[in-house]
Every structure is written in C-alpha cells, then in structure tokens.
C-alpha cells in the first residue's frame, strides 16, 4: 500500500508541531509501521534535536533536491526504531531553497516504500507552509487552547480549504484540565465550536513532553505518560482504528498530579 502523506501545521509558532510530528512518528513506528519524517522548517531545523538525531546529519533535504546526494543518503535511521527515518532540514538555507514541486517529487520517491510520511511544517502561511502541504494527502492542524493560536488555526484551515487540501483534522495540544475546569482556558469544545473540523486528538499538558524533547526521547516512548498515550492514540486513529478520547477530567492519576503541579495540594 502506498504511503499516507501527512503534514502537521498550525499557523502560529510554538504550539507543538515538531513535538507532535516526533511523537506521532515514534508511536506509528513502535506499532511496526515504516515511517519517514521530513523536517520542512528549512533554516530553523528542530525535528532532529527532538528525535535525538542531531549529531548524525550529513546530508539534508536541500542536498537531495539540489542533487548533491541520493535520497537514501539523507535519510537518518532512528537509534531505537529501525523502521523510523528522518530527512532533516537544511540549517544554512531558507525556505526558498525548496519549491512545492520539489517536495512533490521527493515524496513521490518515498511513497512506494513506506507506510507513513510525516511532514513538519514551519509556522506561518508563506512559502515554507506551501511547500509542506504541497504533497500532503491529509493535513493535521495543531493548536493550543488559547485564543491567538485558535485564530491562526482558523486561518490555516481556510487556506487548506482554498487549496483543496480539505479542512484537515485537529489536534488540541497542551490542554490543562484544571484551567479548563476553572474557566481559565478554552475547553476542547470551545475550540471545536469555532473551528468546526474533525478532532483527531487532545493532548494534555505534561511536563514529560519537554523533558523528552530535551533528551531527544519523545514522550510517546513513555508508557506511563498521558501525553504519550494521547499521541499513541492519534497514531492509532491515523491507522483507521477507533479509539475513545482520553478522559482528562477524572479524579485519579493525572488529575492529582496536575493539582500538585499547580500547587493546590
């Protein structure tokens, strides 16, 4: 079966695109899928760091596109998961080094041999974003439950509709159940009410995400992390499984942990 090409984008920066790509890729690959992630953020590459592969980069995506190396030479195999690969971005070039049709050609070469191609989009709605969505079969829009991020997600969804990439599916990242309960944060329902698109995952705020990113070991590896579980569920939904959404508003486990975090106990 040819690969599903999935782009993760947001409009606003800092909402967790790269973290989501890394975690969903790890979750898919842990389940046995053959996965390639592509860092589309040329000039500001991060995905290699979060996957802990920074020191293995020899060639990058611009080298492939400009013919300085073969595609396979730029694909870095993950340390733990032999069926997970990364094509890193170039750090010393800008978004104009790649065009949408470059991306289309590169991904055409990947489709036959892999199950999933995940593309990490840069923030914004300019060239880099257009490159990242050019070859996508499906686009996941990620947002935080805050007004500015939701506004930008709305804009991105509008552009996806105009480019006939469909409305996309939504990931709500860094939801804090305590803040929602106290009406200090938008709830998942508030976000969905405005954006009116399919929801594919709600990821709770979890400090282990940052710890994992800094260590180059995405939280999806951690069987105990709730955020990791949320990412694993997103991966399952991408494979077509029906998985119920996590109950974030229960009284045990995470709830108490978050209350401790918030200094309430």
């Amino acid at each position, binding site marked *: 079966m040819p690969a599903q090409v999935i782009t993760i984008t947001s409009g606003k920066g800092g909402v967790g695109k790269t973290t989501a790509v890394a975690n969903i890729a790890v979750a898919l690959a842990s389940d046995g899928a053959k996965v390639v992630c592509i860092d589309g953020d040329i000039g500001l590459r991060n995905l290699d760091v979060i996957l802990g592969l920074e020191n293995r980069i020899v060639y990058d995506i611009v080298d492939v596109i*400009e*013919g300085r190396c073969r595609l396979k030479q730029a694909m870095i195999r993950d340390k733990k998961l032999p069926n997970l690969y990364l094509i890193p971005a170039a750090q010393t070039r*800008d978004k*104009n*080094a790649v*065009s*949408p*049709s*470059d991306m*289309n*050609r590169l991904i055409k070469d990947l489709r036959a041999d892999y199950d999933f191609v995940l593309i990490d989009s840069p923030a914004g709605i300019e*060239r880099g974003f257009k490159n990242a969505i050019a070859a996508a079969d499906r686009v996941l829009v990620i947002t935080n439950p805050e*007004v500015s991020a939701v*506004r*930008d997600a*709305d*804009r991105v*969804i*509008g*552009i996806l*509709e*105009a*480019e006939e990439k469909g409305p996309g599916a939504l990931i709500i990242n860094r939801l804090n159940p305590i803040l929602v309960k106290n009406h200090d944060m938008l709830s998942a329902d508030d976000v969905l009410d*405005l954006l*009116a698109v399919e929801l594919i995952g709600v990821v709770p705020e979890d400090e282990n995400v940052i710890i994992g990113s800094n260590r180059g070991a995405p939280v999806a590896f951690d069987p105990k992390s709730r955020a990791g579980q949320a990412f694993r569920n997103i991966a399952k939904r991408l494979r077509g499984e029906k998985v119920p959404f996590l109950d974030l508003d229960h009284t045990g486990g995470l709830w108490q942990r978050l209350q401790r975090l918030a200094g309430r106990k």
Partner: protein
Amino acid sequence: MTFMGETNSLIQIKGLRDGLLVSIDDAPWAEQRIALIAQVDAQPAFFQGARLALDVASQVLHVNELVDLRDQLSERGIFLWAVISESPTTETTAQLLGLATRISKPRPEENRQFSVDDLGEETALFLNRTLRSGTRIEFAGHVVVLGDVNPGAEIVAEGNVMIWGRLRGMVHAGAKGNKKAVICALDLSPTQLRIAEEVSATLKPQNNPSPEIVRINGDGKLQAELWSPG
C-alpha cells in the same frame, strides 16, 4: 505598462496582474543575469516582495544557472515562480526546479472584490459558507452569509449585512457612507462593527444568543436591538 526601457535595452519589465514579467533576449546569459540583478539593486523598493516571471526567449539554461538566479533573486526578496522559454531544455530545467512554464494560470484569490457592474442597485452577495480568519469580502451591495463569520474575518459592504449564523468577526455595512444600513445576525458577538463612519468596539458577549439587529440610533451611535418578528 513598460518602463525602464532606456536604461538597459536588454531587459524589459512589465507589470502583470499578479506580479512582474521580465523579458530578456538572446544575448549571453551571464551578461543578462548581471543586468537583471543590477536593475533590481537599482530599485529595491519596487522589486521587494515581487512575484517574478522570466521570459528567456530561446536561451538554453541548465539547473545551476536557474538555481543561481533564483537564489540571487530570493536574497533580494523576489520570488521567481515561472520561466518561459522557447527552448525545450530550459523548459525542462524550469519544470525540474518546480517553476511554472506558463503564466496564464490564475492564482487562487483569497480576498475577492466582487463586481456588480452588470447588476442593479439592490443586489446581494450570497455566501453559503463559514468565513474563516483572514477572509475579506468586499461587495458594492448587500451581503448575506449562511454560516459563521469567525474572528479575523472581515465583511465590507456598501449595503446591509445579514449573518445567518454567529458573527464574531468584523462587519462594515454602508461602507460608502449609507447611515441607513443595518447589520443583523443570529448571534451577535462581533470583534467590531461599523455602519457608515460609526465604529463600535466589542458588544457584550451573550450567554443565550438571540437574533439581533444593529443600526444607527437617534444619537448617531450604533445600537443593537433584539429582533422580533412582526
């Protein structure tokens, strides 16, 4: 519009609907490239942010040559999107680099300005969809939306604006000064409303939204009233 012809006879620059068209002739490529970059550097403000299509006549160009030019232009904030050529080699090169080789294809327009030249005075634009952030609708008549107007979306109409949905963006009715214009919505929680020259900031958010109509009252201020049939 053609201009700057006399400063450099090798290069012609024309304005297109959606960018610039630069035509060069069959003089040696290296010279042409230098001449083009010199033109750009002479008027950086004019070229900044431009979408540029390049007609290279029958020049035979290879990947390196076009990549160099694209990078040079890109450094100057110019986006080379098309190369038109009579040479099949150059055309293939352009395609390899993901450049267009025809320039007739229109770009998708996000911000549309609708024309009512052929229609009468009392015309309305009917939009059967939700207007998302970043969408701007301008119309020289009434606007009717069957859907929501999200925060960050804008409607500017010379006539009235009716939203059969939630209004959370910006609406300007009577944009050419018609103080009789009205705005109505099933749920009125806009970012801002304007009728003619009058502006009102956020109206109070509602817990139980009901249809409302906004018009200019006797004091010349915007006022929202519950809408009741009959």
